[in-house]
Each structure stands twice: as C-alpha cells, then as structure tokens.
C-alpha cells in the first residue's frame, strides 16, 4: 500500500526540457496552480503544454517555459483573454497546435485507449487542418463512405491535475459541479501527479461525496501533493471560488510590462507558502 505523498517541488524536479505536459482543469477553473508556480521556480524549459488553457498557460508563457501550446482556447472565463498568452502569440514566441475543444478531448481519449487516432466531424471545413497540416482525414469503410478528420492521439510525458480530496495512495475526488477531463489527462500520461486541497483517509472519500466523484483511482497516479489553496486564483468549488480580485490584479499586472516585475517579486519569487501568505495579505489589504 504505497504512500505516494510528495511535494510540488519534488514533482516538478522530474520534468526535463522539451517534455510534453498535460495540465488539467478548464480555463480559470480548478487548475493545478501551485504546480505551475513550482514550474516557474524550476529551470525547466521548452515544454509542450497541453491544456484547456487558462492562467496556467499565461504564466508559463510569461516565464519562457513554453515552446508549444496545444489548446482549444485560452481564457480566464470572467476575463476573456490572458494577456501573457496574447503577447506570446503576438510576438510569435510560442508555437501552437490549435484544436477544436472536442478534437482536444478526442486526442486525449485516443491516447488513453492506445489508439493512433479517433475520427470526428469537428474541424472539417475550418482552418484547424490548414493550420496543422500534419492532420489527416480517414474514410469510413462502411456504406456511408464519410471522410472524417483523424485526430491523432496526444500522449503526455507528465500530467498534473488538482482535485478537491485524495488519499495518500492516489485515489482522488472532485466535489464541485464538473470533473473536466482530469481523469483523461492522467490516463494519457506516463507520469501522473494529483495535487489536492487535502489528503484524507480512503474511507473519508466516500463520506465526502458520492462514489461517482472518485474520477481518479490509484492506478492513474504516481504522486500526491497536498496543496491547500493549490488552485488559487482559479476556482476549486466547493472549497473556494475564483479569486476575482486577484485575477484582475494578475491581468492588470500582466498587461503592463512595467508592472509585471513587481507582481513576480511579490507573488512568484518565493515558495508556495510565501505565495499563500502574500495572497492573504493582498486580500486583507484590498478588502
């Protein structure tokens, strides 16, 4: 019965330059932000980041960690655009593979099922195939003869997801309204890390929520990181909602190249405990 507990910094220490990493959550919702902050502190670079993108993508781009982004969108939800991702695109400092949201899901599903591709209608007729000329179509062998897009599997070297609760073996649970695709990120990856608001005993998991909320099981996880507030400033409902005031501060700072260094100095230059301390101070001052 393995104890898989580890720390964000130890988890990130496994990363190597050029790896493909998957980041769970969706937009500015239940993102493994403490892991992202640990990556910012690490020397790793040239990552391919596979994400339903939010501030995870923005922060990693701003820190020069990213070579390519595989995405269907990058948004902060209550604020439409992430300024760092915008700047990275507008200066062509990152490459992109831009998918339809449903294609993105199929790419993960193909990887989880160990299939080379899955067919879909989504993407046909759009600029997605023009912008990713490696994409191919596949023709149905049946009477309909339909020619569909063949979405290639998107395997991951490492996946990071943030869930509300986990036990030390890696059984993990979401307690909010939406599981997103976190289980698929884990299944598509060689190495899998779950950060969680709280590590609890296995028996507590089914006391906290219905058994259907246990979307990740221990065979899908290599490391468990206890990280209270680890999704901040994105939502981790029902533990906490999005910190809208802080997200706005992030965006205002990110928009202004002169303001960004002081944001980095204050929030991103120490460890996770220092971050959480500064966030509490920020909320206290701003409230």
């Amino acid at each position: 019965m393995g104890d898989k507990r580890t720390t964000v910094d130890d988890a990130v220490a496994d990363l190597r330059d050029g790896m493909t990493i998957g980041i769970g959550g969706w937009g500015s919702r239940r993102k493994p932000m403490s892991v992202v902050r640990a990556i910012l502190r690490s020397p790793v670079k040239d990552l391919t980041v596979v994400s339903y993108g939010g501030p995870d993508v923005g922060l990693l781009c701003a820190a020069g960690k990213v070579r390519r982004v595989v995405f269907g969108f990058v948004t902060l939800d209550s604020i439409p655009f992430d300024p760092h991702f915008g700047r990275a695109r507008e200066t062509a400092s990152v490459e992109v593979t831009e998918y339809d949201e449903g294609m993105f899901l199929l790419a993960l599903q193909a990887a989880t099922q160990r299939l080379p591709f899955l067919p879909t209608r989504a993407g046909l007729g759009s600029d997605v195939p023009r912008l990713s000329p490696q994409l191919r179509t596949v023709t149905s062998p049946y009477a309909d003869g339909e020619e569909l897009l063949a979405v290639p599997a998107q395997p991951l070297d490492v996946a990071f997801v943030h869930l509300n609760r986990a036990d030390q073996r890696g059984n993990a649970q979401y307690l909010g309204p939406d599981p997103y695709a976190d289980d698929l990120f884990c299944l598509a990856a060689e190495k899998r890390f779950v950060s969680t608001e709280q590590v609890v005993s296995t028996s507590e998991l089914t006391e906290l929520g219905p058994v259907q909320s246990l979307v990740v099981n221990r065979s899908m996880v290599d490391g468990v990181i206890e990280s209270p507030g680890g999704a901040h400033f994105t939502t981790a409902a029902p533990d906490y909602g999005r910190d809208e005031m802080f997200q706005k501060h992030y965006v205002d700072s990110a928009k202004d190249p002169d303001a960004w260094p002081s944001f980095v100095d204050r929030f991103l230059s120490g460890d996770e405990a220092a971050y959480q301390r500064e966030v509490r101070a920020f909320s206290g001052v701003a409230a």
Partner: protein
Amino acid sequence: MSDVTRAEVAIAAVADLFRDDGEIVASPMGAVPSWGAKLARATFAPDLMLSDGQAYLVDADGVVEGWQPFRRMLDTIVPHGRRHVVMGANQIDRYGNQNISAIGDHARPTKQLLGVRGAPGNTVNHRTSYWVPRHSTRVFVEAVDVVAGVGYDNAAKAGPAAQRHHDVHRVVTNLGVFDFGGPDHAMRAVALHPGVDPGDVSAATGFPVDCAGADTTRLPGAEELRLIRDVLDPDGLRDREVPA
C-alpha cells in the same frame, strides 16, 4: 409601443431564432443571446433546455433538471446534434465563416483572441446562429482571418461529412436579422430593425448585402416586454449591450 428600444427588439429577434427547435439544448453565449433564449422558453418555446452556464441544466424556475459538464457537452451533446448554439463573432464573412481565434496572420497574429474554441465542432454538427451587438465593417469582412465557425463555401469544399449537419441559421445584429439564403448561400437581410434602412446596413458591412426582401423586425409584445424589463434584465443592462 413607441418606447420599445433597439435592445428589446434585438432580444425578441434572438428569441425567434429558437422557434420550432423543440426539446433541444439552447446554448446562448453572452447576455443578449441568454435573454433571448430565456424569453423564448418563457413564451413560445417551453421545451427548450438551458444550462446555468456551468454544469447544470436548469428549468425556468432555476430548478436543476440535469447534469451537463463540459466533457458531456463535447463528447455527446454537440456530436449528437440536438443543440442550437448562438455564438459571438469577431469576424463573419459573406458565406457565414466566423472567426473568434485571432486577427491577422495566425502564425503571428496582431491580436490573439480566444482560439477556435468549440466553433468548428458546433458548426458541422448542429444549428448555429450568431449575435453581433455592433454591426460594422470590422466584423462583417470579405474574408475572415481564421475560419473557426465553418461557412457554407468551406463546408461544401470539405465534402459531405462537413455538410451533412451543417446549418448556419441566422445572424442577429443591432441592425437586423440575416440569413444565408442568397445566391451561393450569400448573407442577405431577412428583416431590418425599425428605424434601420438598407443604406445603414450597406455602410456597416464589408460586402454587398441584399436587403430587397427584408421585412421590418417585429416588436416584442406586451408580455415579452414585461419579461425583458421586469424578469430577465431588471437592471437595464441591455441598453449598454446594444447601441441604439
């Protein structure tokens, strides 16, 4: 009803998009589309299903009637096709191609927008309409920079699999209601809002639009106005969404 505002006309026009849709998921993106869908459900389209914008389907009283997390939306609801989305658009061209991805050359855009999001899948799987609050030559362009939502010409080029369920239904703007019923599926005016003339449309559109057959958009009725003013938007945000 001389006090009916342009915003109220537009909301009723969006509601009319859902006429005869039956028991499907309406997915309105943004304030005016949401008010329109709710107005339709409260009046002539009671079977419409609406999400709370998160993971729940909620009925008219806000009671949760179903679960619709993002993944179910993508792997079941969109491909299954019993859905009508009303998306926004940074650009739309004459044949109904839409862009929400980026402005300029995709390799180095002058302005990064959202990305294509679900627009490619939506447009080849089920009925799609658009809402444009500020009808202008910046939005209605000769050719979009990135095809996110698929128009009629590109669906035809991509073949039968792309055309089979392709159905770009209407564009509602602050000036009128448009469809793609012109020659070769070109955009044409179905109705112009009261006070709008074809010259206004022509000046605000980057390609020719046939307005010859256009009616005048209907005014919302008394019950619809009550719902818009007292129930859906009691704070009067609609006049900020839609320029008069």
